[in-house]
């Protein structure tokens, strides 16, 4: 690790100020950033920890029925919350207990790892990513592998999830890392169904429109049986070919629907 300064502000305004310098970087749970720094693949002059900011902690149900999760809330806290079972179940399967007790939803969404779990939930739920500056719809937020709509120094302060009628996340793990080789989050709302696939595409998390249309008409596993995800944009690596990932996306979608029914 290279040397750096460290600050731990107690409110969002101070954090934003601390992050205004070019070489400053936000620190959530450090589960991604710190290993990268230890390997000297990332370097920063100033780490600004967000975990001491009270207004970025905790979970509540808002007036409009949305689940509001502070940006610095840990995976473990989300896993323990009973309001949105599909999301809690997803959070409870991220990494191991140490990762869940440290890692944060804001850190995960800011990082937008193509194999991460939360992006699937956020996209399938139609969540709103609230930052210190604005509200960003999930549909506009994810912009490809490790790419998001966040500007330099912008902090995710809260994530708001509309709670679906039923939902399920199917995670087929990459055997080594146990991130999602392919993960599918299916969320059924009163008037539509949203399906988001993570781990599979070289463009990062995506919505599978064909399945959404089919499932909105008939929310059953059979509805996806006849569909196929094109393998053209899928990732191909040691752990799975593009064809395999495309196939898994369909299988996991079917399983998610079956489990949600």
């Amino acid at each position, binding site marked *: 690790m290279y040397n750096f300064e460290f600050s731990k502000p107690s409110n969002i305004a101070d954090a934003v100020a601390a992050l205004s310098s070019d070489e400053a970087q936000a620190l959530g749970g450090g589960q991604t950033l710190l290993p990268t720094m230890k390997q*000297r693949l990332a370097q920063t002059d100033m780490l600004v920890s967000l975990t001491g900011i009270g207004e970025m902690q905790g979970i509540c149900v808002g007036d409009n029925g949305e689940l509001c999760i502070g940006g610095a809330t840990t995976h473990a806290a989300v896993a323990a919350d009973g309001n949105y079972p599909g999301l809690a179940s997803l959070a409870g399967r991220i990494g191991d207990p140490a990762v869940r007790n440290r890692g944060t939803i804001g850190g995960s969404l800011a990082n937008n790892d193509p194999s991460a779990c939360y992006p699937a939930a956020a996209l399938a739920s139609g969540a709103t990513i609230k930052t210190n500056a604005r509200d960003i719809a999930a549909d506009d937020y994810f912009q490809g592998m490790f790419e998001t709509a966040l500007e330099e120094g912008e902090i995710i302060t809260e994530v708001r999830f509309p709670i679906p009628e039923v939902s399920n996340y199917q995670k*087929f793990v990459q*055997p*080594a*890392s146990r991130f999602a*080789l392919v993960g599918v989050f299916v969320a059924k709302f009163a008037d539509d169904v949203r399906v988001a696939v993570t781990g599979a595409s070289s463009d990062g998390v995506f919505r599978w429109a064909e399945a959404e249309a089919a499932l909105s008409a008939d929310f059953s596993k059979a509805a996806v049986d006849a569909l196929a995800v094109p393998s053209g944009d899928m990732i191909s690596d040691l*752990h*799975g*070919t593009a064809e*395999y990932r495309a196939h898994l996306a369909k299988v996991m979608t079917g399983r998610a629907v079956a489990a949600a029914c």
Partner: protein
Amino acid sequence: MPKDHGIGASSKRREDVRFLTGQGRYTDDINLQGQAYVHFLRSDVAHGMLKSVDTSAAAAMPGVVRIFTGADFEGVGGVPCGWQVTDKHGEPMQEPAHPVLAQGKVRYVGDAIAAVVAETKEQARNAAEAIELDIEELPAVVDMKAAVQEGATKVHDDLTSNLCYDWGFVEENKPAVDAAFEAATHVTTLELVNNRLSPNPMEPRVAVGDYNPGTDDSTLYTTSQNPHVIRLLMGAFVLGIPEHKLRVVAPDVGGGFGSKIFHYVEEAFCTFAAKACRRPVKWTSSRSEAFVTDAHGRDHVTKIELALDADNNFTGIRTDTYANMGAYLSTFAPSVPTWLHGTLMAGNYKTPNIYVNVKAVFTNTVPVDAYRGAGRPEATFQLERVIDKAARELGVDPIELRRQNFITEFPYATPVAVEYDTGDYEGTMTKLLEMIDRDGFEARREESARNGKLRGLGVNCYIEACGIAPSALVGQLGARAGLYESATVRVNATGGLVVMTGSHSHGQGHETSFAQVVADMIGIPEDQVEIVHGDTANTPMGMGTYGSRSIAVGGSAMVRATEKIIAKAKKIAAHLMEAAEGDVELKDGAFSVAGTDKSVAWGDVTLAAYVPHNYPLEEIEPGLEETAFYDPNNFTYPAGAYACEVEVDPDTGKVDICSFAAADDFGNVINPMIVEGQVHGGLAQGIGQALLENVSYDENGQLLSASYMDYTMPRADDVPNFQVDHSSQTPCTHNPLGVKGCGEAGAIGSPPSVVNAVVDALQRAGHTNVTHIDMPLTPTRVWAAMQG
């Protein structure tokens, strides 16, 4: 009644108290006054000309003590290879130089180019980043078959090609083998890969070099399985330090699996630099470095053919293997695909004609050497896979086909140069069948099918050669060392014992099982016996621990030394009891005279030895300390039968192991609990190889599986509850304990039954074109196989 102490008792592992409470003392726990730290600058290209290494800016960085490059090692020896293989034309293998730091060329990602010694680790690393390299990249040699084509880029320019050797075994057998194939009624052919593995001991490698200018003594603290071997190789071949001026200490070591047998450049560097810098120099490998510097294992590509006659008797085996050596020859690398592999090609079966061809190949990859099982898993995997395939082709039961061909009479001289002293393959197979409820398989398969899963059963046998090894024999085979083992038993005045052994424990529990043996022989409590190992300064010259040799060879040395102690103690006791020596018996820690009530305690005799007031000084010396060296006269041959049941998810290709049973014959067993633990660990590694682990390079020689994000180590939930049994025992006929060794069996015996089970599951589900899937059987591969 199970015994509660001594040989055969499941005594608790005494070393675990310190390991589990954080009191172990590992090499990284050793910090010497004034120590500096080294960081190695390693090549990030697989193959290139080293045009220049400019250290000037780096040398001026804070904390830098000194920077070394290949130039500092001109005139210093290279890291030697400990085994010379002679090829099928009678020529010695090609043996490239292996400098401590790269000279002229880099040959794999991870090859050490320069070493920065600095006050702190961070400073050393900072300065290493400031070294300017000019490397002209060359095409990387990665694929073995391409590497030996005419005109292929050479890894070593001074060798004639990338072929280390082309070995034929037994060359004289070849015509008879070819004739057997011509006469065969059926020939089964299988091409397969034995995947490359990263050893991944929990403790990464560490080396601390120390030099005493007052005495001109050098000391190396290192994570080694065999400190005497390191002292010999490094002292004599690399640094020119005589053994009496060099001490090598391998304290608590957190696992090795073979990877800590070898002499590595970092050990030589730290010892050299400590003298050059006049201060201790320490290196601690990071896990990332371990992936690119610890010798890898396996990496064979093989074609095997099995010939059968009209009655399904095996009549011939012919194999053609490419074995990856990596960029340099690691210490025992040449022996693994040859003498540790070809000699086991008979397996448990009486095949009269066997010919093994092995081409060892240099590539721009990490050196490959022995890894748990070393050669024997490769032999077992080929044989047990091809037999399963043959059974399927012939429409016969795979277990019956094995049984019908079992060797049943011992000693049995195989056509591949070894003689099995004893065994009972039918015995372990019968035991296995008792364990696995084969009759219930169909019902279990139907139950799986109801849950949408494909169930399969795989069985295999294995044999291994352990207790390595008779020195005279391995000398003929090219070993540049003897492979005896040693023990010194020092009895203290008050009766306690210290046993100093050349074997080394790095997780095996020697401190417990060795003490059981010695305590049992004398009849004293185990806690009266202390086992000392790992320091060349206080143990007799020994060859260390690998090849499941420690109890069979090291334990036998200990028995011999203890027998000498008992013989001398009897003389002293005879004197004390005024009896004839021949009438003295030792039982339960007391000497008595047959037919009388005369008795003298062990402690009285040991005290007399050191306080010789009433002592036959004219006949025997005072003191009670004996040394024995034991050189075995054959290998030992543990063997067994394993079975695995799997469920395959047809939608995803994921394999779940439902059950795994292992019936082993280890001969006599000293500590059943430790033996079971060794089998469990071996099975986990074997299942890891079969389903999960894979070192993968891209075509440019970049390591793709360079961290745990991509290299899949088995986790607890990847393996089932194991059923293990070692009640079939045919004691080894030629060592005093009748033991065979158990350390590698699990890793050797388990991969074929896993693959056999998966192929069985797919075949039963109608995927009749799937006759083989290469390891690891990851979901993506199994799914692809099912797509046709």
